[in-house]
Structure formats: C-alpha cells, structure tokens
C-alpha cells in the first residue's frame, strides 16, 4: 500500500507548489506491520468484539511476537477453538472477556487447554467500499 504524502496542503487552482515538498509515500505495511514475519491477517466473525471496534468481516492484524498484558485484545485458543477476546489478568486468575454485554466472561481454569495465538494490533473496517 503506497500513498503519496505531501507535507504542505495542496492549494486549489494553481499548479501545486507543494510538489516540491514530496516526501516519498506512506507505506501502510511499514506503519501497521513492523514485524512482517510474525504478523498475520485474519477476518473477524461475529459481534462479540463490537465494543473494541471489531465488526463482522473486518480485517484484524495480529502480531504473534508481541508481549500480551492485562487488557490486550488477543486471539485466544481455548480447547482448539480460536476467538478474539480481551485478556484480563487479576490476582493470577486469567479470564477472557468480550466487548459486548451479551457475552459473558470465560474464566480460564487449569483443565482448559488455553494458549494465546497472538496480539491484535489494528482493525481495518470498511466505511465506503472502493471499487478496485
């Protein structure tokens, strides 16, 4: 993804003097995916994370190399099932919550097969679809 970026605002009517200030382009790959080897893009399904701004069909950028902490939006693996959740760590008790009050928290117990697949970093949500 390359978007030409002008430092100065472009003026109307005249051949733009801003041309002289071209500074290359914004590379969204570079901005959003600093660790390409460990970054994956997944597509969101369901409405459980709407409160965090993740809507059905959105693209979610996931970086496996990042450290998670309390409050991180993560891809959780519970008994082999992948889901996007908010990680809550309180007094060594881990729970997974959704960003939608219709879903209740899941307490992670010893018997559960639980791992963290990666940390969600950005969402790409379509506002006005553009024909390619």
């Amino acid at each position, binding site marked *: 993804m390359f978007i030409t970026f002008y430092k100065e605002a472009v003026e109307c009517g005249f051949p733009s003097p801003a041309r002289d200030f071209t500074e290359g382009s914004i590379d969204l790959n570079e901005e959003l995916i600093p660790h390409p080897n*460990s970054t994956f893009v997944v597509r969101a399904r369901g409405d459980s994370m709407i409160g965090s701004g993740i809507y059905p069909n959105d693209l979610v950028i996931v970086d496996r190399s990042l450290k998670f902490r309390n409050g991180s939006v993560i891809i959780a693996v519970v008994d082999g099932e992948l889901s996007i959740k908010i990680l809550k760590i309180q007094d060594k008790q881990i729970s997974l919550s959704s960003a939608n009050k219709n879903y209740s928290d899941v307490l992670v117990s010893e018997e559960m097969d639980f791992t963290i697949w990666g940390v969600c970093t950005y969402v790409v949500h379509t506002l006005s679809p553009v024909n390619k």
Partner: protein
Amino acid sequence: MHKKVFALIDCNAFYVSCERVFNPKLNNRPVVALSNNDGCIIARSKEAKALGIKMGVPLFKVKDIIQREKVIVFSSNYTLYADMSRRVMNVISEFAPSIEIYSIDEAFIDFTGARLNYEDYARSLRATILKCTGIPVSIGIGTTKTLAKIANHIAKDDETLDGVYSLVDIKSIDNILEQTEVGEIWGVGRQLSKKLISQGIYNAKLLKYCEDHWIRKMMSINGLKTVTELRGISCLPLQEISATRKSCCTTRTFGRPLMKIEDVEQAMTTFARRATERIRDEGLVASSVSSFLRTSPFDRGNKYYSNSDSITLGDPTCDTILIINAALSIVRRIFKEGYKYKKGGVLLSGFYVEGEEPQSLFSSVKKKSSNLMLAIDNINQRYGNDTIQIASECQAANWRQKRKNCTQSYTTQINKLLLV
C-alpha cells in the same frame, strides 16, 4: 583458526505444523499431509508416526489405519507452506550472519567464531521461531554439516532434549555414531546404504573408520567427503545463494492472439520445456516454477488482463515432465475465458546444483527419469530441436491435479483469510 560450527534447523513435520497453526484442534491428533495429486504420505505428525504410518507410503495402502484411527488427511497446500517457510527462514536470518536454505523446511547456519553458548543460543532461536510463526523446530549442532544433521536427528527423537542437541565438544561422539544407522547419514541414499550394509558397514562409527581408498571405491568422491565430515573435518561449506544464475525464463509473444486454453497450454508447454533444457544444460535443478500470461496492452478494443502465479516444487527437479506439469497447473489457474492472449512465459528459479539438492524419498525414481531426459536432449541435439516433444505440446493433456482436502491460502489471499 577457529573450529567450524554449524547448526541445522529442521521444522518438525513441517506441512502438518503449518496446518496446525491455523487449526489448533489438530494438536495432539494424528495428522498426515499428501503429495501432489494426493498420492503418497509426505508429512506425518508424531501421533501418526506412532500409528506406524510410514513416510512416502501410498495413501491407499494405509486407508484402513486412517479410517480406524480417525487420522486427519490434508492435500498439500504449497502456497501456505511456502509462505510459512519464508517466515521461518527470515526469523533464522535474523539470528545468523549467513544461512543456507537447504529445503522448504531446513536451513543450515554457521556459528563459527561466535562467542556464545551454542546450545543456549539455539534454544532462544527455537523459542523465537515458535512464538513468531507457530512452527516447532529441532536444532542440531556439530563441527560439520553432516554431524549437525546427525545431531538434529537426536534432537528430534529424544523428547527430553527440548529440541536442541549439540555434538560439539562431546567426548563420546563414537558412541553416538554407533547408534546412527548408515541410511540415516546425510548423503547416504537407499542404494548406497544397502551396498554398505551388505559389506557389514551398518552404522556411522563403522563407516567413519573405513579406509579412504575403500570408501572412494564404494562411494565415489562425494562419499569420501561425507566420511571426512563424520571424522569432524568440515569439507561441505555453507552454500549461500550461489553465484549460479538465479532464474531462467522463456517468454514469447504468440504468433497470433490465443483464446483457447488448449492453444495456450500448448505454447506454455514448449516454453517450459525450453527453459528446463537450458537449466539441465547447466546442471541445475529448480525448486520453483512460475507462469505468466497477458493480453496486449495496446489493443484498445479489448480488455487488458495479465496474471501470473508460482508453485514451489516438493523436490527440486530438472525433469521436463514435472516442470511442464507445474507450469500448466498454473496456466489453468490464471487462464480466464474471453481474452485474447498475446504473450506468455515460464520462469524457473530456486536453483540447486544437481546432486546437491535436498535428498528425495524417491531418488531412485528420479535417476531413471533424468536418464530419460538426457536421451531426449541428445536426440533433440542431433536431429534438431523439437524432434521429441512432450505430448501436451501437440495436444493438451486432459488432466487436473487432485487436491481433495486442501486448506485455504490463509496467509496469501485476502478472501481466504482465517475466520476468527
């Protein structure tokens, strides 16, 4: 001078591990992946190995076990595996100044002169690869590539080792070589191992102490290198991306615009054959095949279309038939009805010097095929090019690859992403 130190990083059941990253339900269950056309089993999870499913066995021979034990079967998804391989290799490159990517799931790195605890460093490399990509690897370390390979086998087989094993500074190396069958030694193929066993040389220690002139007689000059490496003297250096050519492309503008897939296939078959002849001439084998097609960009009356794709071959090859098959399978994927195709081409890349490519399970089959190729080249040289052609050049062969249980291209196609 420093003693040489090499590490071999090998992904565990790589194709199965790739599938597991995107489907964690497969963890701890028996899983296998199939070769092109769903013919043979070419990757097995630990659980599938434990059921006695052998490497390379045709699928139909193990149908009963697969049904009874509910083994999960995948067609190979080379697009996914190639992308995951690229990620793994990139992570490895960040840990070492020089890397030899030996196959889709193996790489050698050179630790020579590094002031570090090799095993600790390897452990942190292993943990980083697992965290970043989800792929588990085993790492073997040795003073030669051949010994690193043996160390890797041990790292893989002994679960108490945490995936890392070093043969550097080990006093009892002969005890370990004694437990290594000759057939497991890097560079000793099936035929040779039979020959050696018939002479009473059935483990690596026995081979190590054979006399040079006898080895040269039995195993040729390359065999002597292997044995010298068993003795701890490095003679196979790291082969970074070599000075040999990196790609070979045959591309032409068609005599007239082609609209039928049969005609395009016929032309592309010829391109693939010519490119293959060229690399065979230079003693190379290719591990990647790309095809491209486009219409004329100057034809204003018709819509412009251009597309290309590539395939990573399971075994690097210079076999015309295999390369044509690969090139045509891409053509069938990128060909769209209703366009007037004006230009096309086939590009081969990912070269190895023939004989130095990763060992194949089916190396004896390959030998025969390369004799056939040599004969074809000779005839074409003597009686003019195109005397002998592959059937699809004259009439498009009507086959399609069988890939019944193939997963999606999770990492390379926006409309095939993993749903979470």
